[in-house]
């Protein structure tokens, strides 16, 4: 019987030749991840298990990225709990402020997640690593605690939904963000509940690694367990100077079974905006109407990579942020920040009147660095526009790609780059 890429990776990590959707398996993990919010709970649970060591100090990544640089005393205590745990067990991949990044930008960049890996993280956007051809999924803190002790996780083998996007006729301003928002708009926030999404087609083959990371990142916004791309030459090139251990390319068999197949045409897809308060409330840019905004955020694990910053800079170069708007730009990692600096992008942002921040999840989850007041509206390249996500429960978030966010910041209302004169 044919297997999908997801089934093959799960089988390999369960020591099996074959697995089928619906089966419960115990699988070996290649990497376990937590952050400053989820690690403290995981550490509390880990300490209850009664083991003397973690399963492998080189296969745990701890990243203080959510409320860091520490936003208040309580956050500082949480960050310290994680730091002390990392020191106590000699965790190799602990990244301190100043050397860190937003976890899902950082781990691929550092070569810590590789094709064929099985990765779990106490963060829902762990599914990002599917872009590299890994099986990666979010879990809670207790699952992570058990994994840190045993190196294993129990998983239900998911059915797979195949999403084919055909065409190479790109609208100039369409990227990975628009493709994934378009899909979520079609299938809904629970359209892939408990399932794997496998992305394929000519459009996907042509998509850059940064674009794939953006798409896989938001698989969870359709309820998916994981989103996955078959690795290819682009993946290999991305890993060239990053991977420090062997990896394996898996691909789906021709006769693999899919529970559903969706097929879309790139020609039908223009830049998308998700209206409050669910990522499924998408509208094509041409139908957004007049929505004035108070804040624009460009960054996050969804769109904080170098290509995203380049797209924003392309729109902002030589222009000014609207006097009614605060534009906040957050490079995803220190390396991306430095690259943006070298390329002159940071200068473009500051000249335009944007605030540029050290890497942090900050405003995306309403933590700090750009909280919305009652009634305020933000356009944001982040991944969730739930009620109160970025601040006051009566504020609003409109999700878009970086070029649309930049254009909106200039015009003070939801707008596309073509409207910027």
């Amino acid at each position: 019987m044919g297997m999908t890429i997801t089934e093959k990776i799960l089988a390999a990590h369960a020591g099996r030749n074959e697995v089928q959707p619906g089966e419960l398996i115990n699988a070996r993990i290649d990497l376990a991840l937590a952050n400053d919010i989820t690690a403290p709970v995981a550490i509390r649970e880990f300490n209850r298990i009664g083991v003397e060591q973690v399963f492998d100090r080189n296969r745990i990544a701890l990243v203080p990225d959510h409320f860091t640089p520490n936003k208040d005393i309580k956050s500082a205590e949480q960050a310290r709990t994680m730091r002390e745990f990392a020191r106590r067990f000699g965790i190799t991949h602990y990244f301190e402020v100043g050397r860190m990044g937003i976890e899902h930008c950082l781990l691929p960049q550092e070569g810590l997640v590789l094709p064929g890996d099985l990765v779990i993280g106490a963060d829902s956007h762990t599914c990002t690593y599917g872009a590299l051809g890994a099986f990666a999924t979010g879990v809670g803190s207790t699952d992570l605690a058990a994994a840190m002790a045993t190196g294993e996780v129990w998983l239900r083998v998911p059915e797979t939904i195949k999403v084919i996007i055909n065409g190479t006729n790109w609208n100039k301003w369409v990227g990975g963000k628009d493709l994934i928002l378009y899909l979520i708009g079609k299938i809904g926030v629970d359209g892939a509940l408990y399932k794997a999404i496998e992305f394929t087609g000519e459009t996907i083959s042509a998509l850059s690694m940064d674009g794939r990371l953006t798409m896989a990142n938001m698989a969870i916004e359709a309820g998916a367990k994981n989103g996955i791309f078959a690795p290819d030459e682009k993946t290999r090139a991305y890993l060239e100077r990053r991977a420090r251990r062997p990896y394996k390319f898996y691909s789906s068999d021709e006769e693999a079974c899919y529970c559903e197949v969706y097929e879309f045409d790139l020609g039908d897809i223009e830049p998308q905006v998700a209206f409050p308060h669910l990522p499924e409330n998408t509208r094509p840019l041409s139908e957004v109407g007049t929505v004035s905004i108070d804040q624009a955020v460009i960054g996050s694990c969804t769109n904080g990579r170098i290509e995203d910053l380049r797209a924003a800079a392309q729109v902002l170069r030589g222009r000014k942020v609207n006097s009614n708007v605060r534009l906040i730009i957050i490079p995803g990692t220190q390396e991306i920040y430095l690259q943006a600096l070298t390329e002159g992008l940071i200068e473009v942002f500051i000249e335009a009147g944007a605030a540029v921040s050290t890497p942090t999840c900050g405003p995306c989850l309403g933590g700090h660095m750009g909280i919305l007041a009652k009634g305020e509206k933000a356009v944001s390249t982040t991944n969730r526009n739930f009620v109160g996500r970025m601040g006051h429960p009566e504020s609003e978030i409109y999700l878009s790609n970086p070029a649309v966010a930049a254009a909106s910041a200039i015009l003070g209302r939801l707008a596309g780059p073509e409207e910027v004169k």
Partner: protein
Amino acid sequence: MIIRGRAWKFGDDVDTDAIIPARYLNTSDPAELAGHCLEDADPDFPKEVKPGEIIVAGKNFGCGSSREHAPLAIKAAGLGAVVAASFARIFYRNAFNIGLPIFESPEAAERIRKDDQIKIDPDHGRIYNLTLNEEYQATAIPSFMQELLAAGGLINYVRQKVKNGV
């Protein structure tokens, strides 16, 4: 053990930011989290909810973040159970892992009204609406997850395994 209590009603896609907003995630103290449970969805909820009461919601309950603080807040607020048409998968795992009883039943989610008196028999997945005199069946819990529940959650289960050298 039979769960019995009054129903609180919520809609579809209740997300983890609604269950416990991130502005309170600078702590993981269950009691503190409980004080803000579902406050953005219904400001009266954390003030008025009483131990043993039951949350009844639509599809995709607990979507969004992996924060275990969400089921922790519900459990610490004293809720007896959550009944929903469906659950987001990370929330589903987390609830079992920390021992919060949850039941998937589209029929119960549709029929139960706010303030109805509910009784749940967890062993058989039977949900009784005492106010309407109706009965609903919850989706069966996979046997592995029943083992987890019987062990008292994932940590106890793993602790047992480690102790036995498995």
